[in-house]
Every structure is written in structure tokens, then in C-alpha cells.
């Protein structure tokens, strides 16, 4: 069942809203032209959500990801994280929001090569001033949790792609963020490993972790509870992948969008 974006809230569970776009615009100036990469997007992420953002190439996915991750600020509109509008915060305050509330997972893992796994896991804590004896315990716990086992003293390049992405997921969880924000998280993995990572996401979500993924892969998007389709910088549709009708519609849309990027 496709729904009109305005009534999107009716689809979501009745939990706390942790991230919310209110009529968000992001315009880029290209010489004399203005590119409206996001052109009035409103949406909500609630605690426990598993949301996929999809759309054709140029539809505004990356722009939305950057805004959701507080790496960028909207041209207009509000972005609320944990109830607070962060769209006018300065660089330092925004860095704090990133460090505290958002757990980034990237397509190319983005571990720091010269640091050990443990040190990579401690990076987010370090910028919050929280590296200490407890951080090692937490790193050990999370490494275990993401199925990494005893590899804390390894360097990233000694690990397989799947293992590196597990490290990245553990790192994203180190600060107990409001939500995980994954950018094409399985794009660099073979299909077996992709399934393992998606299973891990399912697992985490069951434990109450909120997940937002940006992807062009319909199969990946279908693993989410909801799929938000972007088109020309606007929300085209919002599918509920858990309902029969929603799933069918999503699959159809996925087929028609084919190789969208």
C-alpha cells in the first residue's frame, strides 16, 4: 500500500520521534542555477524504526544522508534530533550531535588503517572524552555482539570485508547513538556477507536499535520495515514492507526502478 507522504505518520509505530525533517530544503548554487537537491521533505524516524531510503540517481539520497548525519545543514526547514532543532547549530555543536547521537556505517567501512580494531572502536568515545578502562570493556562487549570475536588488537587490513564492516557497526554503537545511519552498507560485500550483515541489522533492530539505511539495492531496502522513495528531492512514496500490500507495491516499485542509484 502506497501512502501519501503527508499521512506517513499513520504508518509508524507509536513510539518517540527521534529524528524528524520538517519541510527540509537543501539547495545548491551552481553558477546561476539553483539545484534543489531536497525540495521540501518531511519525514519522521521513531525509536525502533528500520527505514530504507531509496530513489534514482540524483533523487537526493546522498543529500538526505548528509543532512540526517548532521554533516550538512538544510537551506531551510527544521531537522530535529531527539526533539532538538539542530539545523542552525554551529560546527562544534553539530560535531557533538554527530558524536553522541549518530552511528555512521559506510559503504567502504572507513576504518582508520593505522589504528587497531580496539582503537578504532574508541575513536567516537575519545571525542566525547570517554576513553578509559570502561571503553575497552564496552568495545569487547560490542565486538562480541557483532560477531567479531577476539580481534581487538588486529589492524583493519588484516580483516575480511565482512569483519571490517562488523567493526564499523560496533564502532557506530559505541556511543549508544539514537540511530544507526548506514550508507550503502553492503555495497562492497559479496552476497553471502551481505546477508550476514543484513541479518545482524535485523538482530540489532530486534534489540531496539533504530536503523536508517540509504541504498539503491531493492533487496536490501526490502529488509527494512519501511521504504521511503525519493524523487526529484521530494518524498515520492512511503511503503510499509511488513504488510502484504505494501510489500507487493515495494517489490513492483523496486522492479521498475531497477538499477536506480
Amino acid at each position, binding site marked *: 500500500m502506497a501512502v501519501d507522504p503527508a499521512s506517513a505518520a499513520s504508518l509508524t509505530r507509536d513510539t518517540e520521534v527521534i529524528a524528524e525533517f520538517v519541510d527540509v530544503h537543501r539547495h545548491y548554487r551552481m553558477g546561476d542555477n539553483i539545484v534543489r537537491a531536497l525540495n521540501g521533505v518531511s519525514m519522521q524516524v521513531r525509536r525502533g524504526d528500520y527505514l530504507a531510503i531509496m530513489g534514482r540517481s540524483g533523487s537526493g539520497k546522498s543529500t538526505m544522508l*548528509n543532512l540526517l*548525519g548532521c*554533516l*550538512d545543514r538544510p537551506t531551510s526547514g527544521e531537522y530535529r534530533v531527539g526533539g532538538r532543532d539542530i539545523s542552525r547549530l554551529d*560546527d*562544534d555543536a553539530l*560535531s*557533538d550531535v*554527530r*558524536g*553522541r547521537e549518530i552511528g*555512521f556505517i*559506510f559503504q567502504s567501512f*572507513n*576504518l*582508520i*588503517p*593505522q*589504528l587497531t580494531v580496539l*582503537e578504532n572502536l574508541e*575513536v*567516537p568515545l*575519545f*571525542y*566525547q*572524552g570517554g*576513553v*578509559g578502562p570502561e571503553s575497552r570493556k564496552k568495545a569487547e562487549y560490542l565486538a562480541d555482539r557483532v560477531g567479531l570475536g577476539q580481534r581487538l588488537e588486529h589492524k583493519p587490513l588484516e580483516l575480511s570485508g565482512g569483519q571490517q564492516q562488523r567493526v564499523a557497526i560496533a*564502532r557506530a554503537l559505541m*556511543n549508544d547513538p539514537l540511530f544507526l545511519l548506514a550508507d550503502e552498507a553492503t555495497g562492497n560485500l559479496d552476497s553471502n556477507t551481505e546477508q550476514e550483515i543484513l541479518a545482524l541489522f535485523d538482530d540489532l533492530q530486534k534489540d531496539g536499535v533504530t536503523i536508517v539505511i540509504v541504498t539503491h539495492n531493492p533487496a536490501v531496502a526490502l529488509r527494512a520495515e519501511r521504504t521511503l522513495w525519493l524523487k526529484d528531492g521530494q518524498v515520492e512514496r512511503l511503503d510499509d514492507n511488513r504488510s502484504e500490500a505494501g510489500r507487493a507495491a515495494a517489490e513492483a516499485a523496486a522492479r521498475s526502478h531497477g538499477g536506480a542509484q
Partner: protein
Amino acid sequence: MIRDTWRIVRLGLKSLMLHKLRSSLTTAGILFGVASVIAMLAVGEGAKREALEQFRSMGVSNIIARSKKPPETQQSSTQSSFSALAYGLLYHEADLVQSALPDAKVVRIREIKRPMMRGEHFQASIVVATEPEFLGVANMSVFEGRWLTDTDEMVLANVCVLGAKLAQSLFPLEEVLGKTVLVGSDDRYEVVGVLRDQGRSAGAAGVTYDECMFVPMSTARRRIGEEIMTSTGGSFSRERVELNEIKVKLPDSDEVPMAANILRDLLLEAHKDQDDVAITVPLELLQKEEESKRMFNIVLAVIASISLLVGGIGIMNVMLATVTERTREIGIRRALGAKKKHIIQQFLVEAGVLSALGGVVGVGIGIALPHLITAWFGQKTITLPQHVLLAFGISAAVGVAFGIYPAWRAANMDPVEALRHE
């Protein structure tokens, strides 16, 4: 705080280890800068001390007027083949000086080259005929026996006091006091005292006072006289010199400049025509030396700055390359919550560690190098702790200063762009 700093330094080291060769080469730039600064300062300081020591041994509150042979052109006009060449300070001029400077101690000195013998031990040296005040004015002291007295002067006593080295060479094994020394062909002097080894360069006619024999002025005037025969290249020449030197000691070095003027007026004026007197003011030489040392230091500082500047540019270069290569890392760190200040801190620490490593090794080499210079070239060197600190401090500061721009560039990258960087 300390734990965090240590963590940043440790991670900085890890990042530098990513490019061991590049990091070591950059470090070498600073290393040579620091080592050469320390070594140059040590050589400069050693040379300065040596010069100062020499002038100080002449006495900073002293003024020295010396007789010198007039230039050839004037000799021929004044010297007939029969009469002796007469030049230099006159005996009574010391009295004029004394009455012009009543507070000063004025000492007459006459120097005569003579062979000296004791048993089979022979030494050609200089007989210094002088007055009792000499000891204090030349700032020397008695090792054993006694110094020349007014009584010796009055009774024209045939006594002498030996400089430490002369005593050693004439009496290598014997007891010295009470023995006689044969001077020239027929003069004998009884040794009444030996001076303490001064180890200084100041002395008479190119010989240190440690190698001289001291006799009462009155005795020398009577026994040796003022005319000296010398044979040079088969032809004899006679010289008539009353005094070789007048030493003037002022009660305080403050009075030296004015006294120097008075002496110049008094002596140089009288000897203008013959140009046979020179006045040396150790204080002036000292000041000149300090002045030239200042210049020398400025030149050293400039050379040192240039070498450290080159090292600094090397650091800047490497840090800019590092920042570009690690753009992605910067993006990751920013995404994980790093503020601009954290990025600045990280790269400044890396630059600082890079140059401080060079600084530490450079300090080691810089401390060792002067010893080698002393061993190989005999140049006195003095390494002062503040110079070492200065060189190390500058090296660390250079690293940080030249790290600022790359760090600033890193911190001001757009996180989105940085993350997209390949």
C-alpha cells in the same frame, strides 16, 4: 588530560610510522638544524671564553703602555751607524703617569732576553726587571718563598723570583729556594721565590710570565743597563730601551676609559714622531670582543634560523602531503564527532612529534659534536644548558609553527567532501 595527550602523541607516532622513510627524512632536516645550532653556539662560546680569558688575564682595570720598535723609515733617519737605536718609554715617564693618575698603581717593566743556566739545565728566556707593585698589578701570586721587596730595590739585591714553568725547567728535581741561577755569561741571581702557575697567555714579548725570571728594577739597571747588543745576520745592532712596558692599574674598571685618554694624551703625544709606543686597554679589547661576539652570535642565529626554517618547510611539506593523503581519515573522524579543534590538535601534535624527535636526536648529536671539534681541532667549546634548551625549544616550536597551516587546512575541510575523497 595527560592520558589524552599521551594518547594523541601515541596515535601521532603511529600515523608517522605509516611513512617511516618520509618521516625520518623530515626529522633529519630538524636534526641537523638543532645539532648545528648547538655545536655552533658551543664553538662560539668557547672562542669567546678563550678571548675573554686572555683579556681578563691582562686585567680589566689595567692599561698597558708598551714600547715598540719604530718603523724602518724612521729608524734610518735617526740611527747613525755608531749610536744605538733609542726608542720606547722612558724611565721618568712612569713618574709623569703616576702624578697624572695619583690613585693608580704604576709599574715599570723592562724585559731583557737572556740565556739562563742552572747546572746542566739551560733555558733561553726573559728577565723581567720590575718593581714590587708588579705582583698585584699583574694579578699573580707567590707559590713558595717571597716576592721582590722595596729593600731588594733599595740595596740592588742580586735576587730573582722565577715563574712556575721556568722554575720547573731549571730545577726539575732540585729544591729551588736559595739556589743561584746564571744569567747571561756572568750574572748570578739567588732565587728567593717561585710564582704560582698562572696558566695564562698574558706575558712579556710573546712569552708567558710563567716562563720569566723577575728581578728588581734597580739591580737590572745597574747590572744590565739600557743598551742591548744584538747580532742579526752578522751585523751588530745596538738598542737603547729604558722601559718595555708601563703597567697602570686603576682602582676600578670604571676609571679605565678616562685614564686611557689621559695616558694617550701623555704618552702617545710625546712619542708621536717616533711612533714607538702603543697603548693597550684590555677593557676596550674586551668590549670590542664582546661586540664582535654579539655580531658573531647574530650571524650564528641567522644561519641557525635558516637551517631550522629549511627543516620547518620540510615539515610543512610533509604535513600538507599527510593531510591530503588522509583526507578520508579526517572525514571519518569528523563524522565520528571530532570538532575542528580536535583535527587541528591531532595534526599539530604530529608535526610537533616529528620535529621534537629530530630535536631529541639533534640535541644528542649537538652535545657530542663539540667534543669531537675539541678533539680534532683543539678549539675550545662550551655547551651551555640554555643553548640546548633553546635549540630544542626552537625545533619543537618550528614543528608546531609550520604545522599550523596544514592542520588548519585539515580542520577546515568540508566533512562531506572529505568522506567522499578517494
